[in-house]
């Protein structure tokens, strides 16, 4: 009997082993190696040299570019994510009106997100806003001067944020599912009581949607902090002009793979991990104040 259950377990382990091996080999072990490397100076060529907290010290006290990348990233996240979520909710509400073509619209609006993170879209974005691109063509047709969208240090980051807002699809789908879950009876009851649409939105839609907003907020914040591809493609990997598009992960990448400062880059990655962890925790804690769970009777 015991022998039999051992065998059954073995079969189970065998079935999950591809994941376990992959997880160990490609996630957990590299993570701990990176933790070790963050306390070393390592250029890939000579063995890592233990330097204690030097990397962290340099990051916090001796590297202005680091802080500039932190600033750019915070801008990107704290402006980009709310904009994207607002836009996603807005589109979701429009799509929730029950038009017949809804399926088609949903697909069309979701499309940018499927391809949005990809290299091709970033290149397309660059072309649309290039010096002789379609946007400048329109501006010139209207008699305005062409704008160097990616050449102006102030404008370049806004271009990245706009691109991220445009990729609203996945949050939109989740919002849409949430909206469909709100019982129509509530709206009917509110109509009987004479509530106008704005009142309905703030008193019914938003509270009942708040758990979904929290979910989207956390997922989008985390992914926004890790944004890399558009900044890399649009700035040609340099984070320019004037470090205007030097997002944290791009700076990390440059330290690691352009300058071979693997130790410093590992340290940067761990600081980022801890920061995102703390931020997520704060979001969860403060969510008690604004997220409404129907199942808990509104507690």
């Amino acid at each position, binding site marked *: 009997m015991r022998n039999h259950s051992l*065998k*059954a377990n*073995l*079969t189970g382990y*065998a*079935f999950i*082993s*591809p994941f376990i091996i992959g997880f160990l080999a490609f996630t957990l072990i590299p993570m701990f190696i990176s933790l070790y490397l963050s306390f070393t100076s390592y*250029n*890939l*060529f*000579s063995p890592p040299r233990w330097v204690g907290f030097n990397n962290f010290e340099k990051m916090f006290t001796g590297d202005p*570019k680091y802080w500039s990348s932190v600033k750019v990233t915070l801008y990107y996240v704290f402006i980009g994510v709310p904009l994207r979520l607002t836009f996603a909710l807005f589109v979701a509400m429009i799509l929730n009106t029950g038009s017949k073509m809804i399926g088609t619209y949903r697909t069309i609006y979701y499309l940018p997100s499927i391809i949005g993170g990809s290299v091709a879209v970033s290149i397309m974005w660059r072309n649309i806003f*290039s*010096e*002789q691109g379609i946007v400048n063509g329109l501006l010139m047709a209207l008699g305005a001067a062409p704008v*160097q*969208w*990616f*050449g*102006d*240090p102030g404008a370049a980051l806004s271009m990245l944020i706009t691109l991220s807002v445009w990729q609203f699809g996945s949050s939109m789908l989740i919002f849409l599912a949430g909206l469909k879950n709100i019982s129509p009876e509530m709206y009917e009851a509110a109509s009987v009581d004479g509530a106008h649409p704005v009142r309905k939105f703030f008193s019914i839609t938003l509270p009942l949607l708040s758990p979904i907003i929290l979910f989207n907020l956390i997922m989008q914040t985390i992914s926004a902090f890790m944004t890399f591809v558009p900044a890399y493609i649009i700035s*040609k*990997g*340099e984070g*320019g*002009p*004037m*470090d205007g598009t030097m997002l944290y992960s791009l700076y990390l990448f*440059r330290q690691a*793979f*352009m*300058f*071979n400062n693997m130790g410093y880059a590992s340290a940067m990655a761990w600081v980022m991990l801890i920061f995102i962890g703390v931020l997520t925790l704060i979001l969860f804690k403060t969510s008690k104040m604004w997220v409404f769970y129907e199942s808990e009777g509104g507690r």
Partner: protein
Amino acid sequence: MKMRKTIALATMVAILLLITACGNSGGGNASGGAQDGKTLRIAWWGSDARHEYTQKVIDLYKKQNPGVNIDIEYASFDDYWKKLAPQAAANQLPDIMQMDISYISQYAKNGQLEDLKPYIGSKIKLDDVSENVLSTGLIGGTQYGIPTGVNVLGYQYNPELLKKAGINEIPANWTWDDYKKMAMQAKAKGVYFDESMAADIFFNYFLRTKGHSLYNAEGTALGYEDDALFTEFFGTLAELIKEGAVPSQETLSQNKGILEESTVVKGTGIGTWQWSNQFVALQKVADRPMALAPMLGPDMEKGIYMQPSMYWSIASSSKSKDEAAKFIDFWVNNEEANKLIKGERGVPISSKIKESVTPDLTEAEKQVFDFVSEMEPKASPMSPPPPVGSAEVIATLADYVEQINFGQTTAAEAAPKFRADANAILSNNQP
């Protein structure tokens, strides 16, 4: 029941074995057929056109050397170095690698590359190669690379637009003063004279004309002491941008690295400063007659040098070094192969090969060959290749130059800051 589970278990084990086996053949190419010494791994970076003809050259080599198998790995420039560094760390470098001047020191100093001196003469025949060219592959006195070809700096321009700007020709032995005057004249006619200069390359050129260089010979610090040199050079460039003789930094940043958006191609600018091997691509995209002019002086002869466009190097960990050396010899000396290469990796280093491929060249390619031949006797020896840490120094320099050109700081203010930053980076990278 029991039977079925046993079968399931056996299947799982089989699949797992298969997965690990696949993993092995994918990553373990390095040691592939090294035991018989007849399998070579060769890696390079470049465009699709380069991949195509390189494959043809390799096929030709395989045809002439039956029994030799060659595995190829190629990527874009940036990706190439991201792949190569981990391979170096894992001691699995390809037998033959294309090396760049800005990276070769790092690989050489860390013992990753083979000294090629013993192979020269026996395995690699270099009798038709000038000493000035061959010595560009020396790092600290050791021959770690064989140049694939050479380039030289110059001004590449559209002669028709130059005339339209009221300038008949680029004068022989032109100076910085001529240049500034001509740039302002072009501006008055509504065209740009150039697109500014790549900071590290042309600052190094400028320093060389003054008897210095960007890095010192040991690679431990910058090669100049006087911040006034920095101020003079970058101050001049910023001034031309401010005057509107050169596009604004916004425009430069926006269009950086996009050939189609360059002012020369769009017909709003007369010319651009760059390496001679970039001329062919520029002419092709611009699709109009173009010309090459030497660098400006004074002391142009002290400034210019034959720059290896890239090197072939052999990994010190290679188990097929003789065969690798034979391939490099084939690349340098085989006529048929060079008719495929056509100077795409720089003007061939062998004078014999240079002559024999000339009849097959296009007009633009011929212009480049002629320009390089004209400059070769005038050129001075190259400064030592950029030291370890230079990538970070160059990025730092580019940052400061951007700030100067955007008007956020002045060249005089940036000069001492750059010196301090650069020297700190270089000393950090000393073993």
